[in-house]
């Protein structure tokens, strides 16, 4: 395919990359501003090494569990005769609508003894596995069954072929999970498990000296960069573009009765723990009676603010992700890699660091934006770019490059070919990516806390305020509404995939 990236794609992609990189630049400035000795002092504290072990350990365990959960559920829902697979298909995507801090709050409010490492693992795994499950179902339902049939005819099982085909989806999803965990703030702080993000927050709040927080943030960015490089290597040089038209045929694996019972039990248990338990927890607190006396007008205002700001963030993110995703799927030059990988950086930074860097920029360079909603929308774009870029890239990869070449030979320019062929074919992926961002933005807590205009409250900040003061009952209606709102696009996503 062409080595030359059209500038009409490269320029907006470079702007997006710049937007993602700006917070890192700010971090570097902040970290070294206090002088090198102060920088070194923070970096080489034994507490720093301990934090690194705790953060990385949590990310590794949660990612591994999410890959197992996500792939097994995707395979059961798409490829087997699992009873009620349509329902399970919807249920399996629903945890995306459960904010991790809400899940953490329901678990710890009912079982205080699980706080710490394993409590964090439990909550984060149940909240994050859809990041693997969704791309895996998309890949499985577009996979050509002929490849599996070839493997069967050669006396091999289906598994090697399926696993091989699923690798890009599993790697991309696993990468998102690992980065999500490293950037997680709410759930771990509720579970009282101290990691980089909580320590950064503490350092920021505790003193006027922002150097330690910046140093820790920088270290976290470096760890994430290593993960990104590892993922790029695992993707390798293999071209996953399908040749010819995508498969329209489906095959279904018939399970033995015992396997059916076990599989149904497995899918049901995951759904019960990931969705059922938080709902039951919220229900318990709603019925408890301490949630009476909520102001309906407050509630309505929060709903409107949440929807508006999240939708604006999702649309901006989707629009910015399209050129980056196309470049990432079609080009292998250093510029293409740079653009793609720098867009991932935004997700690696904890929301709190992005938010503070944007506050800094706004105060210095764009004061009218300070404490206005466009700044929050921008923060959402930086934070959730990886999910959108991943979705765009994955769907562009699925449409064979030869289609663009044919369009070129029929008189379309490089951009015309993208617009008339690649984009329409990638549209479901772009829409799914945008919906994913919308879902995630509605649950966003730390950046929203810092960047919201004075007097504006989203459901998340309301929930956080109430939980912070220990009034679990008063928090419950916000939690319930938040899950209800987020479940609508989640339900559509799940139905589309199933």
């Amino acid at each position, binding site marked *: 395919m062409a080595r030359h990236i059209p500038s009409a794609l490269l320029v907006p992609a470079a702007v997006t990359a710049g937007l993602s990189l700006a917070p890192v630049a700010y971090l570097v400035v902040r970290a070294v501003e206090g002088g090198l000795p102060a920088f070194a002092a923070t970096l080489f504290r034994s507490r720093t090494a301990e934090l690194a072990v705790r953060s990385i350990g949590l990310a590794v365990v949660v990612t591994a569990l999410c890959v197992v959960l996500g792939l097994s559920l995707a395979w059961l829902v798409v490829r087997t005769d699992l009873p009620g697979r349509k329902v399970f298909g919807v249920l399996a995507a629903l945890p995306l609508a459960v904010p991790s801090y809400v899940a953490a709050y329901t678990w710890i409010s009912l079982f205080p003894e699980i706080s710490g490492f394993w409590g964090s693992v439990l909550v984060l795994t149940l909240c994050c596995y859809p990041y693997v499950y969704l791309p895996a179902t998309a890949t499985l339902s577009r996979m050509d069954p002929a490849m599996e049939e070839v493997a069967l005819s050669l006396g091999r099982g289906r598994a090697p072929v399926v696993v091989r085909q699923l690798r890009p989806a599993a790697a991309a999803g696993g990468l998102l999970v690992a980065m999500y965990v490293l950037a997680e703030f709410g759930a771990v702080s509720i579970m009282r498990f101290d990691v980089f993000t909580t320590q950064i927050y503490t350092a920021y709040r505790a003193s006027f000296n922002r150097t330690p927080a910046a140093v820790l943030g920088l270290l976290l960015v470096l760890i994430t960069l290593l993960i990104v490089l590892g993922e790029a290597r695992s993707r390798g040089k293999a071209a996953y573009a399908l040749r010819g*038209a995508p498969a329209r045929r489906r095959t279904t694996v018939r399970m033995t009765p015992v396997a059916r019972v076990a599989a149904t039990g497995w899918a049901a248990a995951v759904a019960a723990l990931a969705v059922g338990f938080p709902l039951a927890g919220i229900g318990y607190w709603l019925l408890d009676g301490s949630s009476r006396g909520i102001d309906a007008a407050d509630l309505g205002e929060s709903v409107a603010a949440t929807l508006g700001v999240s939708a604006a963030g999702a649309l901006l993110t989707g629009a910015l992700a399209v050129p980056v995703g196309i470049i990432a799927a079609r080009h292998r030059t250093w510029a293409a890699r740079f653009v793609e990988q720098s867009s991932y950086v935004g997700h690696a930074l904890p929301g709190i660091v992005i938010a503070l860097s944007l506050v800094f920029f706004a105060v210095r360079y764009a004061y009218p934006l300070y404490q206005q909603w466009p700044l929050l929308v921008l923060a959402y774009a930086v934070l959730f770019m990886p999910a959108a870029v991943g979705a765009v890239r994955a769907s562009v990869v699925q449409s064979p490059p*030869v289609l663009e070449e*044919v369009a*070129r*030979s*029929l*008189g379309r*320019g490089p951009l015309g070919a993208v617009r008339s062929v690649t984009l329409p*074919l990638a549209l479901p992926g772009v829409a799914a990516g945008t919906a994913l961002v919308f879902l995630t933005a509605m649950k966003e807590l730390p950046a929203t806390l810092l960047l919201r205009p004075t007097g504006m409250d989203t459901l998340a900040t309301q929930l956080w305020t109430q939980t912070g003061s220990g009034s679990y009952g008063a928090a419950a209606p916000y939690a319930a509404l938040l899950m209800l709102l987020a479940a609508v696009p989640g339900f559509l996503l799940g139905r589309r995939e199933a």
Partner: protein
Amino acid sequence: MSGLTVSGIVKAFDGAPVLRGASLSVREGSFAAVLGPSGCGKTTLLRIVAGFERADAGSVSLGGREVTALPPEKRRVGIVPQEAALFPHLSVARNVGFGLPRGGSRAEWSSRVEECLELVGLAGYGSRMPHELSGGQQQRVALARALAPRPGVVLLDEPFNALDRSLRGVVRDEVRSAVKRAGATCVLVTHDQEEALSMADVVAVMRDGLIVQSDTPAEVYASPVDLGVATFVGEAVVLDAISSGGVASCALGRLRQRSNGVAGAGFVALRPEQVTLTAGSALPADGAGNGQAGSPASAAPRGRVARVEFFGHDAAVTVTMDDGVVIRARTRGVAVHQVGDMVEVGVDGPVLFFPAAG
């Protein structure tokens, strides 16, 4: 001559040369086939003509217009890729109309689309979606799509590979007649010599990044430029030989050469249908038309039939000669020879002689 002229194309990928100065000219309205084994660079040549790759050196001109530096969309080159590559989100009509000027009248657009679908025998299929068509129909839609904007040349990139064998012959005929009716200049890239010989007006044989011979199918078959072309285009029996005075001496005796070449050691190549087999006891017939030059009757080469393959319209007989040389002959109709029979081997018509390389 307008049509397509490609001259001296050089192309390397990451330092590995793929094309080493390939040249080709195709007269306007004629059907050319670029024939070569996989990896010879024929697909790269096609991609350079289409503008998808840029040549390191050399030029491409179309209808007398130099297009070497133009992007694909400015070249007026139609392309039919290996697996049709119809746009899956567009109906058949919108696929075919994809390259037609936008902003023209709706009626004009529809009539050209319908005209092109008729050309490929798919009138009335406009509202179908690509996945509702068979493989052969998809190929024909791809051809209609390529022909619709009246391109200077249509490139077919091994378009029949993905098709069922029984279907291939039919689709080939339909494609060829559609291209001829449209009066389009056409270049087919293929590794299938039968396809090239049966479809094209001109066959260009490609090897190691060069077009080594470009001629009518009959001429390429009858007078290959070297032993490589002789064995690649059609079957050939190759024997060690020594040439002098237009006669080559080999295991089958002294054979008349098609042309006087350089005398000395080399190879003789003959087509299996030139080999005649007679039952072992029969006396060899002397006279006109016999390729054996002045060989004494008693010295007629003999061999034993090792294998008989029956194909219906003809049969292939493998004969092991007394001195161990193996010969493959084609005989018409019902095979009269059985495995184990002794036969005398004769040669009908002049043979090809190629001096040993170096």
